């Protein structure tokens, strides 16, 4: 995936929908693409993961299932992150949030950006921060509704 493709993968996330193109490009510059085989794991300890294709099952990091569980057992505990979802974003704005483990349910492609890099971009650009905040509030209101 080149820079533009990575940016498009990021832009496909609802939570990044309001970010300015230039901000998405700056995030994409710092992003790396990883292809995951079914069963491969990723943690949100230091990265934000955007699901570009496939799906990842999510579990709490402290659960023993995160270490030993299969995708199906993890799915019973948590949720499934699919294309357009992003894992680890809460830790960007709330660093004390516990990280989670996610396991690829099938062959998947994820775009990873270091938590620090996302935070850098948001701190650098108050407009981006506001856009993210508004997206989060929309998600919250959507849930409330």
């Amino acid at each position, binding site marked *: 995936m080149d820079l533009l493709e990575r940016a498009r993968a990021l832009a496909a996330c609802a939570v990044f929908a309001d970010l*300015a193109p230039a901000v998405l490009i700056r995030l994409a510059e710092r992003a790396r693409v990883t292809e995951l085989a079914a069963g491969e794991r990723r943690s949100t300890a230091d990265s934000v993961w955007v699901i570009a294709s496939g799906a990842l099952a999510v579990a709490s990091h402290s659960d023993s299932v995160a270490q030993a569980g299969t995708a199906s057992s993890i799915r019973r505990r948590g949720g499934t992150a699919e294309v357009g979802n992003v894992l680890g974003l809460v830790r960007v704005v709330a660093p004390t949030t516990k990280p989670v483990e996610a396991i690829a349910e099938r062959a998947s492609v994820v775009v990873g950006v270091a938590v620090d890099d996302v935070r850098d971009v948001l701190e*650098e650009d108050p407009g981006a921060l506001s856009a993210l905040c508004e997206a989060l509030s929309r998600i919250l209101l959507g849930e409330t509704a």
Partner: protein
Amino acid sequence: MNRRALALGAAMVLLVNLVAVALRAYAEAAFIAAYGKGALPWLLIASASGFAIATIVYDQITRRVQATGADLGLIGALLIAAALSPKLLDAGAPPVAIVIALAAAPQVVGLALWNRVAASVAGRDARRMLPRAGAAVTVGGVIAGLGVAPLIVRIGATFIPYVGAGVLAIVVVVYLAQGRALAAGGAPGATAPVGASPPPASPVRTLLRAMIVVAMLEGVLATVIDLQFLGNLKARYSGDSLAIALSLFYGGTNAVLLLLQIAAVPRILVTRSIPFTAAIHPVLVMLGYVVFAIAPTFVNLAGTRTTDQVLRLATTRTSQELELSAVPPLPRARWKVLLRGVLYPLGAGSAAILLYLLGPAVVEKPTALAGAAIGVAIVYWIAGQVAARRFQVALAAPLGITGTRRIDNRIDLETLERWTEAAGDPDLRTASLARAALARVRVDATDLADHLTHDNPAMRSALFDQLARTSPATAQSLKGELVAAIAIEDDDRALALGIKALALLGDDSGIAVAKNRAVVTAEVADALRVAELALRGVGDARAELGGLCARDPQWAIELARKAIVAPDVLAGVLAEAAKDPDRRAGALRVLAHVAEGPGLAPLADALADGDPAAIDAIALLDAAGATHLAAHIATMVPVARAIAARALSGAPAGIPLVAVLLRDADPEVAYAALRTALAIAGGGSALPAEPIGLALEAALAALTGYLDARDRATAWTACARHELDLAARRCVARLLWAAAVEAAAGGRDPAALTATARHLIGGRDADRRRALDVVQELQAGRAEILGVIERWLRPAVPTEGDAVAAIAPHDPWLAQVGAGELADLEPTLALLRKPALLATVAGPALADLARRARRELVKDVVFHEGDAGDTMLVVARGALRATRAAVAGAVATTRTIEVGGVVGELAVLTHAPRAATVVADPDAEVIAIDRATFASAARRAPELVLGLSATLAGWIAPNRPDLI
């Protein structure tokens, strides 16, 4: 730092080294006297293998019993061996056994006890104090080396082991006392701080692998030098005179080492990075051997061996000690023993065996051996650098700081073509992303020439547009190709853009092409008209300028720069356009590029109001525009300047303006400009050195001012002192950002320093010590930065003096607070600091919010669930109860909001109805912050939005695992 344990530990290792040096001299002299020069390799093998075996035994014992028991057992065994050794030798015991017992075992005791010294200190205190504890070890060596020789002359060498046994008895007593001191005062170097992030396994493993190689190479090098030196020594001396020569050599070596440990090593360790420190030993040994190879005299050889012995302990072992600080405490102690007691001797022993197999001829070819030693030293130096770099990675890893990265903004022709096509994509999001990508990357201008006659008209349009936006020099270099392309252009949009691109280059050939066409579309007609105005002065300049503000602000900027109308007329046209919603964004953009004096007012006002169009106008500045605005920005109010500074974060062309804002007298503007400079540097653009240097000096002076004020502010109110602490914390970030920008200007990745700044000011206390160590590794040689940050991490030291005077030049607002001029605002400020949302907001912004917010008495129902609302409430007195009605599948919930709690945060961000019914206690009082007040504060302090995002994220997280 546990000072008592450190002092007792230093005394303990001093005594042990005194014994070790004395017993070693005695044992080696006995060995050489018994077996002769030809057995020298065997001495080294016996010494090394004895050391390794004793260490392995010790390691195995400590895995089964407590270290204290193992240590005391080891000391006791050595004491007995020393006391019995003269009689055993007389009885015919083999000297090789004496070497193992009296030369190897004391070294293991030394290692074991050194762990107890290291347990008493951690972090930068370890860098400062461990060399001094090492100096105590050296003092023991000096006393033994210089004191044993006269004793041998007077009463013979046999006396030495008895003295050693007596001193070891004293060591046992000191050991027990130090253990009690560690139990009472803590062992910071042997336990991870509570709450500290554990180091990830992978960087630690790679670090240990490198350290194993370094330890073995260290042993190989030492053996080669030892063999050559001892061979020469044996040729010159024999009998008691040999023992005297050996002990004098050890004593002299330790004297030099002592000087270094007292005078130089602590300073090197607290000011230089580990790669620098680790390089000292191999590089100087190499130099020593080069000198010896040129002039192979005994003095030069002795000098080289002294260099090796001294620097191995002074710099290599201290580097090893610090590198091990990245390893968790338990494995750290074990690996320290194994590296020094097994792997180092393993390297030494292997080298000794090889030298023995090569035979005595090796010693007789000093230059060849010197060449081999230089080769080993080179490999050793490289391995040391690898280990040191891995240490830096392992040190930073628990803080989430990963390796350096480089952003490569160059693209090839194929990508250029693909993105250019995407820039014309019907999907607006894709098109805008492609344009943003194209604006960010670098393309070789000559690459564009081949595409100006591309088959796809959309591609040609995009390329002409790119040329119109590119630098004049680049566009000028392609003028010929552009003229040829426009001459045959048949697409209206591409032609309009081509006419513009040519007109901007001062070429009117596009006008002729357009006029020759039978039918001219509105777009081409517009371009034709503006081109004629720009190149021939024909047309209504006011009307065209006004129209271009809506259609093509970039061309409006170019026209304005040509001064086709008088400045006052231009200001009038733009001010008028700025009032028209359709032309406002373009007008502000033109103003940002060309306006000055009162003409800038519409832009300044819009910036102060946080108008997105004004922010875009700044973000889209070109280099000439940024230079122009830099000369006039001082006329704007600070909040407008700060917003302008932040707007430039994604605009490398704005560097001239950032450079000016970095020097802004207002601390919040300078703070914002520095963050922006960091963003620009992170994107790979270079900032000029002068403003970076000034920003660094200003931040350093400001932080020193804050710390001076902290020491003197004993009479300040609690609120004022809290604001001082917060301001100092922000200044630490400012200082490290300046250092990061400076690092970027030097070609290094600034991301690690930025992340470290975050951990230092916002991280857990447990991680700060590690963060400071990371700063040291990243900021080697900047002692003043390290010193002031270390001072900030320490508690204030109450001092007499004027705190307000200390801070006034750097932070006038805080000086006002300290002087009591904002006393009426302090109660509200203190209350607003309670919620996490507002806890770290910049003081002036919070004070502004406090002034605008309303204090209200509330009672009964404050608002109902579902009501419209635009105000958030901070509880100032009493309590509120928020109740959410039961919805399908859930029960009603009630929470109580006490003093300092917040309710209604969403209302200041969205127009959503209230999510709960809130009822107040009878005597409750709140601070009401409406949407406009919050927005105004957020413009000054974007971290408010970050706080709000954190609140929202906390609410969302439990139900949205796909967002966690």
